């Protein structure tokens, strides 16, 4: 009897402990799917333009619209009412990628102009676009060209998530939500960081809802080299904004031609950067985060050893949107000092 109890207890403990690591969707099928898209009255959470592919009840934006509470199982990246962002997006109800609310509500430069959320950008192509950054599968965004007026999409050929060689957004991430992503290895969409094909990283269980130095995403970054690592979070951005990642367009060391990404601040820790995040404590800053080569665990301290303080695109920007110009994490444009630039540029406060 004692042995049986022990086994049962072990199973319970295993389930409790291991569940947060399993980010694949859980719950009843009808949370996401409908067999006939014919229920009357139609549930409010369903989209109104159905039926949808894969018997879904809504499209990408529809399912991921809402208000984050910290306990929601679906990450909400678009809200119909103004989210609480605060000064840096770390204390309100937005997640790591921010929110598309602002770009959808008249602030054209505050987010990626994703089709289905807002109108097309005034920019004809992504700034810094080049066709020389294929993803790990060898697929280049847009097949290497970006037609004028083409909007960015959530997934697919012109999207961030899923396969770039698949036009259909649903097909581009097919099966990803049901994949066991206990191990993020970048080998499939489902086992890539946040379904970003090939990208690595450690996923925070609540998508960085009010993150702290001990509870946050651990982004994958690698010190830059002539042959870029295709699995860093910054490389994902470079797939569209290649000039901003390029060795020739950015440089390999100071003086930089453009602000570097995938650069290890350990290389310059004897300079002002050694005082990160401004007080020299080297505590991981959720306001201006840095990536790392080792993403097996969350880092609360950085600049401890080589490869643990990698400058990323997402050190300054959020991928979806913020209230601020150019999706900046903080109000860079509105600050005489650049605001939180001084978290890294510690003498420029």
């Amino acid at each position: 009897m004692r042995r049986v109890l022990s086994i049962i207890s072990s199973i319970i403990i295993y389930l409790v402990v291991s569940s947060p690591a399993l980010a694949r969707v859980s719950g009843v099928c009808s949370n996401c799917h409908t067999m006939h898209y014919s229920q009357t009255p139609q549930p409010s959470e369903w989209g109104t333009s159905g039926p949808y592919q894969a018997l879904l009840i809504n499209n990408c934006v529809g399912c991921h619209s809402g208000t984050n509470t910290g306990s929601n199982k679906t990450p909400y990246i678009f809200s119909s009412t103004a989210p609480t962002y605060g000064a840096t997006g770390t204390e309100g109800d937005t997640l790591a990628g921010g929110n598309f609310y602002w770009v959808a509500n008249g602030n054209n430069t505050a987010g990626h102009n994703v089709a289905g959320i807002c109108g097309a950008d005034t920019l004809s192509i992504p700034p810094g676009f080049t066709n020389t950054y294929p993803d790990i599968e060898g697929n280049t965004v847009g097949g290497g060209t970006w037609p004028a007026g083409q909007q960015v999409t959530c997934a697919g050929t012109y999207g961030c998530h899923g396969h770039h060689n698949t036009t259909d957004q649903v097909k581009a991430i097919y099966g990803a939500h049901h994949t066991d992503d206990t191990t993020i290895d970048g080998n499939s969409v489902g086992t890539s960081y946040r379904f970003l094909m090939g990208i690595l990283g450690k996923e925070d269980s609540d998508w960085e809802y009010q993150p702290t130095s001990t509870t946050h995403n651990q982004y994958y970054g690698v010190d830059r080299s002539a042959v870029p690592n295709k699995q860093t979070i910054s490389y994902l951005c470079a797939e569209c904004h290649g000039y901003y990642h390029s060795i020739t367009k950015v440089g390999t060391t100071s003086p930089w031609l453009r602000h570097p990404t995938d650069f290890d601040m350990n290389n310059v820790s004897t300079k002002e950067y050694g005082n990160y995040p401004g007080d020299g404590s080297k505590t991981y800053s959720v306001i201006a985060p840095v990536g790392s080569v080792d993403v097996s665990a969350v880092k609360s301290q950085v600049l401890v050893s080589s490869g643990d303080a990698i400058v990323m695109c997402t050190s300054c920007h959020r991928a979806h949107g913020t209230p601020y110009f150019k999706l900046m994490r903080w109000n860079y444009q509105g600050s005489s000092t650049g605001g939180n630039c001084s978290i890294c540029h510690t003498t420029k406060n």
Partner: protein
Amino acid sequence: MKVLVIILSVILSFCLPVKAGNYSLSAHGNASYGVKRDDTNLSGYAQGNCAHCHEQHASINGTEPNPSSAKASKFCLFADNFSGTQAGSYSQSDDFCFYCHTSLESLQVNGITNKDYSATFGGATASVTGIMDTFNQTSYHNLYDVLNSAKSYWPSTFTADSNPCAACHNPHLAKRNKAYPGDPSYTAISKPSAHDQLWGDDPGERLSDFTTYYQAPYYYGSTSTYEPNNQGKPVNGWGSNMPDYDSFCTDCHNSTNTIYSTTLSRNLYKIDWITAGGESGGDKHGKNAATTGLNIKEPFASSDLGITTGFVLSCLDCHEPHGSPNVMLIRREVNGGNLSGNITVFSTIYWSYLCGRCHKDDYKYIHHYDSEAPYPGPPKGCKSCHGSSMKGPINCNYCHFHGGDDSCLNDSSASPYCPTYYTGRRCF
């Protein structure tokens, strides 16, 4: 044990990264008058914001604001730091700073007014109103040479990619001294040997710390107020209201550094502003003192320092830092008044325009009739020194220059050759 802790603490303090500065207190970072590039693409950026000088992605919102070079510049600047030109006159594209610091087509919203030292701290009527304009005069701090020297002596700080202006200024720290001419805590300069900190803002960095024998010259048009702020004697003594310019300038222009001047096609005279010792010492306008009496004007003649010799001058009592209508960056206004005319060549008798601002301008008396005159009498054989015409003074620069003495009298290859009268006096 306690000693060990102290030693370890000291060692550790040197290992720690540099302390945080304060860009927001700098002139460029000021929210009211800081950098603000006049371009519609930047209109939404706060005054002082990084983007007015640095374009993080070599573009703003997908386009490149003015000036558009169609290329990315180092340090993410909106234009190249320095063109590498070896001589003036300079244009905006020669130096990044000139894009704003000029009176013509400044990129700064509403422009910037920068007068020369003679006007800003001396009180003279402005003759130029932009830094680039001050350089584009008869003489100027050759930017090519400045950068070469900085690279040579502080290679870990300055490289071929550096801006020459950065040898003397840290753009992220420099303050608006021009608005507070008597308050060195608003200094705009940083020693090249200590680029990461201001010079003059802290106690111990004032001219009064370098010497207690500084007498400030008169402010322009006044016989009761003084440089640099048109006020009386500062509470903490002469020189306490300005940076220690002597230590600043001698960071480069000292008795050991060899500095080549492309403009002059020769090495600059080395300057020993420190060594006392009379005729075997350094410059008598520095810490060395005159070995004879002086015939000097006010406010030196009646200085409350209680001395009539041994004054230590500030380099900027005579020199402009950027450029001047005179040779050798000589100020156009000295000791309360303008020079009588421009000194346009080095070899001339018209150095009296400068020297006469403080010294009684009677060359014949000083050289021949004063009780301590070096060539009393005057001696016979005037032609030896004065040439066949025997009229008037000879060029001052035979003897009077940094480090100079009257050893020219011993040079048989050139006039004036009259070794009989050689005194060995240090003449500067």
